[in-house]
C-alpha cells in the first residue's frame, strides 16, 4: 500500500519536476574515439562542486538538474560538455586532443602544459614506473629518456648509480644531476666509508613516485642556476585524489643471477700453463712444484687435479628480490591523502651482499578555505645493507677469481675457510667478519599556498631532509686483521638540509596574451657531521662492538656545511595560442665560492611557434602538430668541496703529537663553472598524433671548468681547484612515439629514443694534458679519453709482447715501429669511456586482459679498460689464475697469436696497454614484462577493482662483444672521479632478475 502511494505520487510529480528543473540521475559510459572505455574521467556540473568519476568500466552516474551542463575532462582528450535534457543516459565518446597531448608537466617552481613547452624535458609517468618493479629510483629511467645515460656502477645491490644528462660537462665537479623532490632539492651525497659508493637515493621507494621530469636544457634548468648544468631531476610523489578511497597492494618475488660469468683456468690448465711459464723463465720443475705446494694441501691436489675450485662460482651466487607494498589514497573536497608503506629485500648476486628497505610515506593536503591550501609530504625510510669491500680489496668477492684453482676454499671441516691461499680468502668475510650499514632517511616538506587574488598566488615551501647513516665493520681474528686480534670501526654521519622556498605566481590573460609570471627566493643550508672510532684487540670474535676493543686506535669527528641563497623569476607569454616566449633568471650565492665570486646570475630565454595552429594547418589531421622550439641559457655547477677556495692547514699528527700541515692551496677567485646551452627542437604529430616525434639539437659549452689543476708537487700539493678550461657537448636527440595498433581488443604502441653526444675538451690551462693514470683530458679529444701504450701483439719469432713506439715524429706522424721494450713506447689516445650513441626502444602491447612490454637499451662508442687485466690475462706473469683465453699463448716460432709467450715473473706484456682495452658497445633487453589483468566481471564479484599478475625479467639478454664481465660494470672505487671513467677492476656484473608478482586494487 505504501509503495503504491509513492508510485502514484511520483507519477504526478514527474511533470512538475521537469517544469521546475527537478533533480534526476544521469548514467552513461565514457569511451575514447576508438571505443575503449575510459575509467577515471572527471565529470562535474559546470559552475558547481558537484562531480564524480567514471568507474573501471567507464560508467558513471550523477544526480543533476535538467538544463545544467556536464563537463567531461580527461588528460590528453578534448574536454566535452553536454547539456542535460530529456535523456537519462548520456554516453560520451571523447575525442583525442588533436592539437597536442595537453599533458601537464612539472617544471621548477610550477607546472606547464606540454603544448606550451619550449624546453626540453623528458617525462616519465607512474604508469611507466609501475610496469617494472625495480629496487631504486634511478633504474626506472633506464632507456626511457633521450640523452640520459643511467649506469649502475656495478652489480652490488646498493651500488651508486651514475646519471649523465647530455654528456659530461665538468672534470672535477660532480656530474650528477640535482634531485628535487616535490619542489625541494634533496641530499645526494654518497656516505660510504669505503670507496664503493652507496646510492644516496636508495631509501626512496620507487612506488611512491607519480612522475619524474628530467630538465635537460638550459631553458628548463636555469631556474636552478648554479646547480642546473648536469640537468635537474624533478620527482613528484603520489597525491590523493578526491573520490573513492583506493587501496593498492603489490607484491613480487624474483630470483637473480649475474648477467655474465667469465672463463678461468681449471687445475689441469693452470698447472700446464704455469709449468710452461716457469720453465720458460728458468725455474726448475722442483722449484715450481715447491711453489705449487705452498698453495695446495697435498701434492696430488694439483698433480692429479684432485682439487679444482671454481672461485668465481663462490663469489657470484644466486640472489633474490622480494618487494611488498601497500598504499591507500583518497580524499574529499577539502582534504586528500596518500599513505604508503613498502618493503624491499634484495639478496645480491655477489656473496654476502644484501639490502633491506622499509619505507613509509604520508602525503596530505587540505583546503583551509577557497583560497588557502596547506599540505605535507613526508617520507621516512630505513635501509639495512650488508656490504662488501670495494673492488680494490682482496676481501671483495670477485677478486677470488685470482686464487689458484687447486687451493681449497674451505678446510676439511667444510665450514672454516682455508687460510693457505695465494690471496686473502674472501670467504673469511662471511665467516668471521661483518659489514653493516643502517641508513635512515627522512624527507619532509610542508607547504602553504594562498590565492591572493584570482590571478596571484603565493606559495611557501619548507623542506627538511635528513640522511643519517651508521656503518659498522668488524673483522675477526681469522681475517686480515689476525695480527691485531680483530679490528672494528664505526662511522656515523648525519647530513641534514633545510630548504625554504617562497614564491609568487601570477596568471592572467590580456586579450590574445596568456601570461604566467613566477618570482621568489630560496635559501638552503646543508650541515654534515661525522663521528668515527676504530678499535683493535678483541677478546672474542663474538664481541664485535668497540666496547670490547682492547685498544682504541683511531677516532674522530668533523663538521662541515654550505649555504645557498637564491632569487629567481620567470615570465612565460603565449600569444594567440601559438607564439610562446619565455625568459627566466636566477641569482645564486654560495658559501662555497671565493669572496669575489660569491654571486652568479643565470639567465635563460626560449621561444616556440606552434605552426599547426596557423590557419593553413589548423584542423589538418595528417600533420596534426608542428611546433618549433629554440632556447638559450646559462647554468652552473657548484659541486666542489665546501672550502675549496681557501688555503688551509689541517691536523697532521706524528707519534700522537699534534701537528699542522698545509692541506690545500686555494684560489680566492674560485667561482662556479658556467655552461651555455643552446637547444633547437621540432615537435611533430601525424595522423591525429598517432605518431609523434621530436628532434632536438643542442650544444653545451662549459667554461671556467671546476678543475683540480695538477701542479708540480714540488710546491707541496698535487692539485689546486681552479676555474680553468673549456669543453663542449653537442648532440642530436630523436624521440618517436607511435600507436601502431589501436583497437577494441588489441593495442600496440612503441616508443623509441636515440641520442648522440660528441664531447670535446676545447681548452685547458696552458693547453697542457691532464692525466689520471689511464685517462687523459686533452684539448681536441673527448674528456677522460683513454691514454695508453698501444699493444702491437706478439712477435711470432720470439713470443715477445710488442708495442707500437708511437713516438711523435717531426712531421707530426707517429713512429709505427714495434718494440718489445715497453719503456720505448709512447702513450696515445686510444678510446672514449663515454658512449657516443645511446638509445632505448620500448613496446607496449595489450590484448584483452593480457599486456606485454619490453625495453631494449643500447649504447655505442664507449670503451672500457680492464685494469684487472694486468693480473688476469698476462700469460702467467704472476701466480694469479688466468682467464682461459691465455691458453692460446705463443709456444714456438711461427705461432701467430695475440697472447705472448708464457713467462712466470717475466714481464712479457703485463704492462698497462691497450691489450686490456675493449669496446663496450651493447644492446640489452633491459626488461620484459608479461601481465594478465582479470576481467572486471570476475574481480568485481570479489569486491576487487583490479587484479593483475605479471612476470618481469630484467637484463635477460645482453648482446655485446665486450670480453670481460659486463660492459656497464666499472670499478666502484673510481665512481667519484670524473677523469677515471670507464675503468673496470674485478667489478661485479649487474643482476639478471626473473620476477613474478601481482598488483591488487580495491
Amino acid at each position: 500500500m505504501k509503495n503504491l502511494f509513492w508510485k502514484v505520487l511520483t507519477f504526478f510529480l514527474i511533470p512538475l519536476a521537469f517544469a521546475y528543473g527537478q533533480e534526476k540521475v544521469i548514467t552513461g559510459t565514457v569511451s575514447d574515439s576508438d571505443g575503449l572505455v575510459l575509467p577515471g574521467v572527471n565529470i562535474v556540473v559546470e559552475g558547481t562542486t558537484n562531480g564524480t568519476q567514471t568507474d573501471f568500466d567507464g560508467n558513471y552516474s550523477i544526480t543533476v538538474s535538467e538544463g545544467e551542463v556536464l563537463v567531461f575532462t580527461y588528460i590528453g582528450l578534448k574536454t566535452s560538455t553536454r547539456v542535460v535534457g530529456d535523456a537519462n543516459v548520456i554516453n560520451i565518446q571523447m575525442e583525442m586532443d588533436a592539437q597536442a597531448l595537453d599533458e601537464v608537466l612539472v617544471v621548477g617552481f610550477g607546472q606547464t602544459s606540454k603544448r606550451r613547452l619550449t624546453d626540453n624535458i623528458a617525462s616519465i609517468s607512474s604508469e611507466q614506473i609501475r610496469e617494472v618493479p625495480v629496487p631504486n629510483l634511478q633504474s626506472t629511467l633506464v632507456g626511457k629518456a633521450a640523452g640520459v645515460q643511467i649506469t649502475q656502477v656495478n652489480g652490488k645491490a646498493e651500488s651508486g648509480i651514475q646519471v649523465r644528462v647530455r654528456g659530461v660537462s665538468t672534470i672535477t665537479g660532480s656530474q650528477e644531476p640535482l634531485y628535487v623532490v616535490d619542489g625541494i632539492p634533496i641530499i645526494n651525497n654518497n656516505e660510504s666509508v669505503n670507496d664503493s659508493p652507496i646510492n644516496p637515493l636508495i631509501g626512496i621507494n620507487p612506488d611512491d613516485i607519480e612522475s619524474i621530469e628530467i630538465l635537460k636544457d638550459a631553458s628548463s634548468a636555469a631556474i636552478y642556476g648554479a646547480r642546473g648544468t648536469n640537468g635537474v631531476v624533478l620527482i613528484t610523489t603520489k597525491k590523493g585524489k578526491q573520490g573513492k578511497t583506493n587501496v593498492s597492494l603489490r607484491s613480487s618475488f624474483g630470483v637473480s643471477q649475474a648477467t655474465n660469468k667469465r672463463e678461468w683456468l681449471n687445475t689441469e690448465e693452470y698447472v700446464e700453463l704455469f709449468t710452461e711459464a716457469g720453465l720458460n723463465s728458468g725455474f726448475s720443475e722442483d722449484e715450481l712444484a715447491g711453489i705449487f705446494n705452498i698453495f695446495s694441501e697435498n701434492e696430488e691436489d694439483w698433480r692429479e687435479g684432485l682439487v679444482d675450485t671454481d672461485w668465481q662460482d663462490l663469489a657470484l651466487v644466486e640472489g633474490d628480490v622480494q618487494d611488498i607494498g601497500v598504499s591507500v589514497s583518497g580524499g574529499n573536497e577539502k582534504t586528500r591523502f596518500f599513505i604508503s608503506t613498502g618493503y624491499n629485500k634484495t639478496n645480491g648476486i655477489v656473496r654476502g651482499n644484501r639490502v633491506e628497505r622499509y619505507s613509509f610515506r604520508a602525503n596530505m593536503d587540505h583546503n583551509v578555505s577557497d583560497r588557502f591550501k596547506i599540505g605535507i609530504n613526508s617520507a621516512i625510510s630505513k635501509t639495512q645493507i650488508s656490504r662488501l669491500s670495494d673492488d680494490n680489496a682482496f676481501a671483495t668477492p670477485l677478486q677470488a677469481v685470482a686464487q689458484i684453482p687447486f687451493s681449497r676454499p674451505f678446510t676439511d671441516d667444510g665450514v672454516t675457510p682455508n687460510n693457505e691461499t695465494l690471496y686473502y680468502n674472501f670467504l673469511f668475510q662471511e665467516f668471521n667478519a661483518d659489514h653493516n650499514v643502517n641508513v635512515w632517511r627522512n624527507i619532509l616538506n610542508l607547504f602553504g599556498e594562498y590565492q591572493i587574488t584570482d590571478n596571484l598566488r603565493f606559495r611557501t615551501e619548507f623542506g627538511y631532509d635528513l640522511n643519517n647513516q651508521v656503518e659498522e665493520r668488524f673483522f675477526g681474528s681469522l681475517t686480515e686483521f689476525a695480527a691485531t686480534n680483530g679490528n672494528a670501526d664505526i662511522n656515523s654521519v648525519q647530513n641534514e638540509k633545510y630548504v625554504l622556498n617562497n614564491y609568487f605566481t601570477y596568471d592572467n590573460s590580456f586579450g590574445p596574451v596568456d601570461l604566467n609570471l613566477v618570482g621568489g627566493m630560496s635559501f638552503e643550508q646543508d650541515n654534515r657531521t661525522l663521528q668515527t672510532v676504530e678499535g683493535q684487540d678483541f677478546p672474542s670474535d663474538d664481541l664485535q662492538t668497540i666496547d670490547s676493543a682492547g685498544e682504541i686506535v683511531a677516532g674522530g669527528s668533523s663538521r662541515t656545511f654550505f649555504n645557498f641563497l637564491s632569487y629567481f623569476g620567470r615570465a612565460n607569454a603565449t600569444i594567440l595560442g601559438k607564439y610562446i616566449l619565455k625568459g627566466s633568471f636566477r641569482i645564486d650565492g654560495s658559501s662555497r665560492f671565493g669572496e669575489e665570486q660569491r654571486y652568479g646570475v643565470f639567465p635563460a630565454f626560449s621561444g616556440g611557434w606552434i605552426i599547426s595552429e596557423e590557419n593553413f594547418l589548423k584542423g589538418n589531421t595528417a600533420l596534426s602538430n608542428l611546433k618549433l622550439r629554440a632556447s638559450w641559457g646559462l647554468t652552473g655547477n657548484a659541486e666542489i668541496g665546501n672550502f675549496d677556495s681557501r688555503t688551509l692547514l689541517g691536523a697532521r699528527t706524528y707519534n700522537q703529537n699534534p701537528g699542522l700541515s698545509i692541506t690545500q692551496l686555494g684560489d680566492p677567485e674560485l667561482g662556479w663553472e658556467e655552461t651555455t646551452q643552446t637547444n633547437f627542437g621540432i615537435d611533430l604529430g601525424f595522423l591525429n598524433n598517432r605518431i609523434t616525434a621530436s628532434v632536438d639539437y643542442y650544444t653545451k659549452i662549459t667554461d671556467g671548468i671546476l678543475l683540480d689543476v695538477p701542479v708540480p708537487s714540488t710546491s707541496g700539493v698535487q692539485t689546486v681547484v681552479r676555474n680553468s678550461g673549456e669543453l663542449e657537448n653537442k648532440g642530436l636527440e630523436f624521440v618517436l612515439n607511435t600507436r601502431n595498433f589501436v583497437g577494441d581488443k588489441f593495442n600496440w604502441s612503441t616508443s623509441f629514443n636515440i641520442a648522440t653526444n660528441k664531447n670535446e675538451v676545447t681548452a685547458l690551462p696552458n693547453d697542457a694534458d691532464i692525466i689520471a693514470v689511464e685517462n687523459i683530458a686533452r684539448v681536441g679529444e673527448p674528456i677522460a679519453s683513454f691514454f695508453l701504450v698501444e699493444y702491437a701483439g706478439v712477435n711470432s719469432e720470439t713470443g715477445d709482447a710488442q708495442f707500437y713506439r708511437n713516438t711523435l715524429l717531426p712531421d707530426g706522424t707517429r713512429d709505427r715501429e714495434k718494440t718489445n721494450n715497453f719503456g720505448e713506447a709512447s702513450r696515445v689516445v686510444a678510446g672514449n669511456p663515454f658512449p657516443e650513441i645511446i638509445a632505448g626502444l620500448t613496446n607496449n602491447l595489450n590484448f584483452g586482459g593480457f599486456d606485454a612490454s619490453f625495453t631494449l637499451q643500447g649504447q655505442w662508442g664507449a670503451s672500457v679498460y680492464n685494469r684487472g687485466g694486468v693480473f688476469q690475462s698476462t700469460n702467467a706473469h704472476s701466480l694469479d689464475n688466468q682467464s682461459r683465453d691465455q691458453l692460446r699463448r705463443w709456444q714456438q716460432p711461427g705461432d701467430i697469436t695475440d697472447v705472448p709467450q708464457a713467462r712466470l715473473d717475466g714481464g712479457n706484456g703485463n704492462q698497462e696497454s691497450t691489450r686490456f682495452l675493449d669496446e663496450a658497445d651493447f644492446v640489452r633487453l633491459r626488461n620484459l614484462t608479461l601481465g594478465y589483468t582479470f576481467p572486471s566481471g570476475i574481480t568485481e564479484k570479489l569486491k576487487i577493482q583490479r587484479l593483475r599478475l605479471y612476470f618481469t625479467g630484467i637484463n635477460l639478454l645482453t648482446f655485446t662483444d665486450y670480453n670481460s664481465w659486463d660492459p656497464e660494470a666499472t670499478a666502484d672505487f673510481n665512481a667519484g672521479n670524473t677523469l677515471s671513467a670507464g675503468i673496470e677492476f674485478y667489478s661485479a656484473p649487474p643482476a639478471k632478475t626473473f620476477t613474478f608478482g601481482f598488483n591488487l586494487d580495491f
Partner: protein
Amino acid sequence: MKHLNLILLLLATFFFVRCDDNLELEPAQSLTPGPVLANPENTRDLLIAAYDFAGENEVLSGQSQLASELLANVGELTWRGTFVEPDEFDIKQMTAPNFFVQELWEISYEGINQTNVILDNLQVSDESDIIEGEAKFIRGTLYFELARFFALPYEAGSTNSQLGLPIMLEGVVDAGAITFPTRNTLEEVYDQIIRDLNDAYNLLPLSNDIFADRYAAQAVLARAYLQQGNYAAARDAADDVLNNSGHALATTYAEAFNNETDGIEDIFMWQITPQDGENDFNTFWAIRDFGGRSITGDVTVEAPYFDLFTGSDDRSTFFYEGSGTIVTSKWQSQFANVPYLRIAEMHLIRAESNFRLGTAVGLSPEDEINTLRVRSNAVPIAGLTLQDILDERKRELGFEGHALHDAKRLQLSIDGRPYNDDLLVFPIPQRELDANPNLEPNPGYSN
C-alpha cells in the same frame, strides 16, 4: 584592497633571510695560514707534521727501502707479493707511472715544502734554533733519499753534472706562488744536503727525545759522505756519532729490532704507534699472522743470502718460516718503530773508511768488525779484507734498504746491468712530467 596588508606581510617574510651573513662560513677542521704562521706557538706543530711526512710508510717507513732491496736483488730475495710496483723493482722494469715512485716523490716534496714554510716563518724564541735544526735535518735527509733514487749514481772525484732534483728552498703557502722548476745538478743537490745537515748538526741539541738530535744529523752525513766516496769525512762523522752520541750496540742482535720505543742502538727511529704511522717493512716482509700481506711473506729470503755466512752467526738464524718460505725476523712487529739510523751502521762506515784510508780512527777496522761479529756470536775474523767488511755490511744491514745504494757506490753489476744503468734509476714520475713541462725525464724512460 583588503589583500594589501597580506601582500605586505608576505613580502616581509620573503626577505626575512638576511643575505650575505649566511654565506660567510668558516671550516671547522682547518685553519687559514695567516694566523698560524704569525703564531710562534704553531711552529712546533708545523715541525711535527714535517716529521710525519718524512716518516710516512711511502717515504722512509718501508716503501723506499723495499725498492732499494728489490732493485738490487740478484737472487737473495723473491718477490711473491701481488703489488705491481715492487714487482717492477724486482724485475728492473720500472715504468714512469709506478705509484711507489710517485708517492715517494710527492710526499717527500710535501715534507720539504713543510720545512721550507717553517724556515721562512721562523721567529726568534727559546726553541727556534732547535726547530731550525730539525727542519733542516728533515729537509737534508729527504733530498738525500730522493737523490739516491732519482739520479744516476754519484761519481766520486768528478763533477756530478748529471740531472739531480729541483731544489726548493722557499715555502709555498698560496696558489700564486707555485713554480715550475727545472732539475738542479746532482752536485748541487749534494751540496744542499751537506749544507742542511751541517747546519742541523750545529743547531741541534745533544739529545732530543724521539726527535732528531745533532748525532742524527751527523749519522745521515756519514751516510752521505760514504755515498760520495768521501771516506775521510764519512769516517769522522761516524766516529763522532760513535764516541759522543751515547748510543751503543744492543746486547743481542735481536734486541735491535721490533722495538716499540727507541733502544740504545737507535740514533733515530721513525715512530709508529697503532694510532699513528704505518710500518711498511712489516707490511711486505712479515707473514699475515704478524700483520704482513701474505701467508708466504711478500718478500722471502732465498739460499744465496745464506751463502754469506760461514759458521754459526745469530744473524743467519734471525728468520722464521712462512708457508714453506723463509722470511726475516727483523720486521715481525706491526707497530714497532722503524730503525732508520742504527749504531751498527756507524761501525760499518767507520771500519770501511778506515780500511780504505789505512787509518784506525776510533778503532781498527778488524776490531770494529769483530765487535759486530761477537755481538752476534760469530767467530771473529782474522786478516780482514775489504770484501769481508762489505760482506759484513750485508750480513748486518740486510733488508734494511741499503742494497741498491751500496751496489751503486761499489759499482757492482746487478743482473748483468752495470751499476750506472739507466734502468736502475727511478723514473721521474709520469704525473710530475705531465704537470711540469720544465722537468726533464730520466734517460731510458720515454713514455
